[in-house]
């Protein structure tokens, strides 16, 4: 169970693939014997990053989102990448409630959710070239969000 295992998934930037991407990641991390809550945490983070690629990164549903996932020891590492519009000011984009698409009722909580549910989140982006979100979570370690209340 501590051997490294990895996968790479590429799919169309369609909203119906958000659920597919979550399910695929959940199935892939099963070998780590995660708790239900850990699975939900990772699924939520994946959903945020993939949704962002689909609605902010691209206009065309035939463009591709690339997701990688690796497990090693008790850790999950994920990247979600688009080759779309990119982000001008990453620090600002990551502020809670900041959104450029209020007309779509985006809450501006996407990055905040990724940070709440994963241990570490890093975003690299360049305008016109695309965005990559890298995330990591150690399973078996209760996190701040779990003891939030």
């Amino acid at each position, binding site marked *: 169970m501590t051997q490294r295992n990895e996968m790479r998934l590429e799919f169309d930037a369609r*909203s*119906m693939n*958000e*659920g597919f991407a*979550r399910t695929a990641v959940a199935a892939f991390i099963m070998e780590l014997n995660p708790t239900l*809550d850990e699975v*939900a945490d990772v*699924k*939520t983070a994946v*959903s*945020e990053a993939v*949704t962002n690629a*689909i*609605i902010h990164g691209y206009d065309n549903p035939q463009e591709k989102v690339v997701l990688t996932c690796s497990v090693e020891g008790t850790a999950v590492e994920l990247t979600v990448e688009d080759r779309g519009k990119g982000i001008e000011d990453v620090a600002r984009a990551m502020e809670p409630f900041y959104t450029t698409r209020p007309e*779509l*009722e*985006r*809450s501006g*909580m*996407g990055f*905040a*959710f990724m940070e*709440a*549910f994963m241990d570490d989140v890093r975003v690299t982006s360049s305008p016109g070239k695309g965005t990559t979100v890298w995330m990591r979570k150690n399973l078996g370690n209760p996190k701040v*969000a*779990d003891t*939030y*209340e």
Partner: protein
Amino acid sequence: MENYCEWKEGCLLVHMPKELDHHQAGLIRAEADLIIDTCRVQTLVFDFKKTEFMDSSGIGVIIGRSRKMSYQGGRVVAQNLNQRMEKIFVVSGLHKMIEKENS
């Protein structure tokens, strides 16, 4: 229409789906707004009985409908939150904005 909404004597009951993401949020928004814009909704209830997954797109759809209701002076309630949904409500701050209830 997927029939998320049930309308009865001033109360709009929205049955939230099993997995609430951006894809589903758009469908719920369209259906609920049709009723909020045409009927006199006094109470809006989001029922999470079936809901196992929700991301920040769900927050958007709830805040959006709540805002509409506050213009017309109605009440907004969330009911039947499981542990996961409680956590999502806390992390997002929704628990401070929306009344919770168990039906």
